[in-house]
């Protein structure tokens, strides 16, 4: 086994380590109780994790962070509007919205993919600006077409005296589907953990018996799980999670998406994603239709982002018609980078870890800002700065390492 080198580890995970420290400091100074932070964190995780996971495939396919997922969110919001208009509520409403999102988001994804193929190497800035551009079209659609040219009947969607769809779309009415997914099966944290661990333990044991897993690794898993179960028996630890209600089905869906990502990357198309991501020229030479593969990657990402937005919306219970999608790309992109992903490499684990850290900071930063500097606004601005800063930093580091590699290659050639 290779010796663990602290310095390499730190260098490779600088952003994550820095973020852990930052979160720790903010947590310390925020003065918020651990149970409250945990409660908030689980709420935020349940509604945000899915959309962060939607970013993985384009990264693998070499297109960087897909900032155009805002367009997927727009597709979902269009679907939500019509589901409410038709008055399909509850879980059927959510299912219908998810179904409706697929063709819309896939169509948008197709267009995005086509456009991004025309600006290879500039996908991220292209996606960002495309998101802004699409926001203009979205406004046209919601301000001047829906509610004017295409009349809407459902109460609350259109406000008399103003043009277009109302500023807020409410899902908590009897027409909406607030908590359609979250409310299905809400368990206390400890119970949810037992179930999860039981399933994991069974899987591990089965794998061990089938000899698909190394015994040492399996044993470590089992011991860790047992230790966790032991830990929650301590009242102090159990107390931290006392407020947490786990929306089990939502997390189940997130888990399924993780499996989907992993499974997809093992299929033929998944291999093609990797090949295109590593080197377009080589992939092209080996007979892969690069443009097509890239379009597919973006389409999948856009549809997933749409579903992610649906999960977000059903948890929040209402959304800002003209603003709910705007920051989706920024926050999801920042989250995945915080978890240690780069714009060329990303895994489910990094996405989830990033989600935890990023949202932890979101919870504690304003209070910490207030306690440290006497002004909550500083914390607010600080977390926006962190979101942008993390992306900028990741881009700089990526570009830097690219330049460095080229330099090294050059030096290797000349010497």
């Amino acid at each position, binding site marked *: 086994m290779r010796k663990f080198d602290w310095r390499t580890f730190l260098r490779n995970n600088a952003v994550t380590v820095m973020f852990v420290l930052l979160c720790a400091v903010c947590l310390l100074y925020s003065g918020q109780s651990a149970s409250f932070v945990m409660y908030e964190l689980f709420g935020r995780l349940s509604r945000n994790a899915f959309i962060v996971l939607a970013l993985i495939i384009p990264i693998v396919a070499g297109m960087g962070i897909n900032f155009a997922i805002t367009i997927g969110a727009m597709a979902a919001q269009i679907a939500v509007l019509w589901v409410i208009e038709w008055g399909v509520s509850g879980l059927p409403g959510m299912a219908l919205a998810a179904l409706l999102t697929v063709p819309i988001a896939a169509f948008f994804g197709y267009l995005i993919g086509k456009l991004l193929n025309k*600006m290879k190497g500039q996908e991220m800035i292209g996606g960002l600006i495309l998101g802004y551009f699409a926001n203009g079209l979205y406004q046209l659609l919601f301000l001047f077409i829906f509610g004017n040219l295409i009349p809407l009947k459902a109460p609350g969607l259109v406000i008399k005296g103003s043009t277009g769809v109302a500023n807020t779309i409410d899902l908590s009415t009897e027409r909406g589907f607030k908590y359609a997914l979250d409310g299905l099966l809400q368990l206390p944290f400890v119970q949810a953990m037992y179930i999860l661990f039981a399933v994991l333990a069974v899987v591990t044991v089965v794998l061990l018996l089938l000899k698909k897993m190394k015994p040492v690794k399996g044993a470590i898993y089992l011991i860790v799980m047992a230790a966790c179960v032991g830990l929650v028996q301590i009242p102090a630890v159990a107390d931290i999670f006392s407020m947490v209600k786990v929306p089990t089905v939502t997390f189940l869906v997130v888990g399924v998406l993780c499996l989907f990502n992993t499974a997809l990357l093992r299929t033929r198309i998944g291999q093609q994603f990797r090949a295109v991501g590593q080197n377009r020229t080589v992939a092209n030479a080996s007979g892969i239709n690069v443009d097509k593969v890239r379009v597919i990657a973006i389409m999948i990402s856009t549809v997933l982002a749409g579903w992610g937005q649906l999960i977000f919306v059903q948890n929040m219970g209402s959304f800002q018609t003209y603003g709910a999608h705007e920051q989706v790309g920024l926050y999801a992109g920042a989250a995945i980078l915080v978890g240690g992903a780069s714009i060329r490499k990303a895994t489910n684990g990094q996405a989830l870890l990033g989600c935890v850290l990023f949202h932890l900071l979101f919870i504690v930063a304003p209070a910490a800002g207030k306690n440290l500097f006497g*002004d909550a606004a500083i914390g607010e601005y600080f977390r926006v700065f962190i979101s942008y800063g993390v992306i900028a930093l990741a881009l700089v580091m990526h570009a830097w390492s690219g330049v460095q590699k080229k330099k090294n290659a050059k030096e290797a050639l000349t010497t």
Partner: protein
Amino acid sequence: MTKNKLQRAVAIVLVAAALVLAVLGAVNLPKRTTQTGQEIIDALRIRTLLNATGDGVVESYVKIAQDEARAKAREDAKATGANVMATIRDYVAKAEEETRAKYASSQTDYDALDTTALKAAISTYAAQLADYQAVAQQAEQAYIDAHIAEAEAAAAAARQAKIDAGQEVGEEKPVTVDMSGFVATEEMKAAQLKADEGFAAVGEALCGIYPVLDAAAVNTLKGTITDVVYQRGDEFTVQYDRYMAAGSEKALENGTAAFLIRYADDLLYGALALLVAAATVLYYELLCKKLGIPRIIIGLFFILLCFMTLWFDLGLSTLLSNSLVRMGMNSIMVLAMVPGIQCGISLNLGLPIGLVAGLIGGLVTIQLGVPGWPGFLLAIVVGCVIAAVAGWLYAQLLNRLKGDEMSVTTYVGFSIVSLMCIAWLVLPFTSLKLRWPMGTGLRNTIGLDNTNFKHILDDFLAFKVGSFTVPTGLLLFMLLMCFLVWLFTRSKTGVAMSAVGNNPRFAEATGINVDKMRVIGTVLSTVLGAIGILVYSQSYGFMQLYTAPRQMGFIAASAILIGGASTSRCKISHVLIGTFLFQGVLTLGMPVANELVPGSTISETLRILISNGIILYALTKSGGEARA
């Protein structure tokens, strides 16, 4: 060849249509002031007047019927011994209903009425009213001239008081003189007397037509009648629209002719528009090659907006004057794109770094209270120094990541803006013009006024031609800066710099220090950004802090792209053309959009679409692969 023929055919049809419209317009336009126009107006006026007074007549009939009913009710009640009050109430209500029904259903046949007397009376009355209004306007203007200084001083004092009290100072409204102290002059009274005589004559004529009207009823209708007959600033189109809106079109013997006369000017504009369309169709290929499709679309859109403002009578010259001002105030920020593109960092979307530096310069000036020109220059100097340092650091970063600048610059710019949001909260400025007196931090928008550099360039040597104001100082400054940058690009360093932007490898091979050139370009771009935001602020009248600078890099980038630049090549002319087109479309777009969809934000949507659409287009054209 067939395509060419088709083009020609379409162009010929368009030109023919244009000629028809032009002839129609040219024939009909002068008719407004001749006898024909006067007759149309007279006919419409009489009809509107009769219509308006007709309502009064109905009221008179109702009143008469009610009186009769009341008398009858008394008698009947006496005869039957019923409750007097209740009977009266019933009878009166019934009479009113019947009378109203009777007159509402029977439309008066206006053509059968003899209106010769009324016509003569109204003509005289209209002339008298016009006289009176002219006199009144003169007197009011004199009053305003006498009191404007006083009002301005009061407004400034109120503003200062607001600042001292720590309230938000809104956009400065134009100062208005309080007219409550205004007393009618002797001349006005004389004119009024004459007009009253005229009104008496009109009243008499009306009574002749509607025998039921009495003098008292006519007097209650005085306001209505006066409004119909003459309003201040009346001319053919205004009166026509007013009478048409009152539903008097039936009075015209020949509605089409009147319509043509009313819209004669629009016919001429339409002819011109068709000619432009014909030329575009005819020379489409040439234009495409010279300008590129996006510029044609935006150029044509701009021309279309011009015609639409004419069509809706929105005052094209004022709007063009506004777009000139907005071109001037944005131009330096757009100019800042030039060194960036030329030195090879492509669109400098990190422009907010420079903008923030410029804002700090402005804050320092206000904090120190340096007024006027010295203040503006101080702001520029401080801003430039900070921008130069920040730009140098920024350039060091960019030199380490060649080829991937755009996304990095964007997010670095965003980060700096949000970092500065924190800085605005904690920077130790103390002036109450800058800070919130309660709470922490600087204000969101800092209103400039005459004690610092508001409109210092705009008002320098500014003059008016009709409603078109020329902001001479602003334009001169813009041209000066453009000239300086042009001179720089012609210098030895400038030529070397463009070589780096066009082909870095070739430039390196010829012995140019690529990194140094990139540093120079980036610093220059950042410094121009700092100057740009100060020019923008002095013209806008406000300095906007916090998140306001975030999107400005995009706006500047899209302007130069609209002007014809690409991500690796640009000229000064692109700056001027692009800024004018972009700002022109935005300035003209707002009122036109409001005319089409009242109270909407469609012009903001328009900005988003144009600004981001053009950047996307440029990105697709930059060819991606080649830069990787």
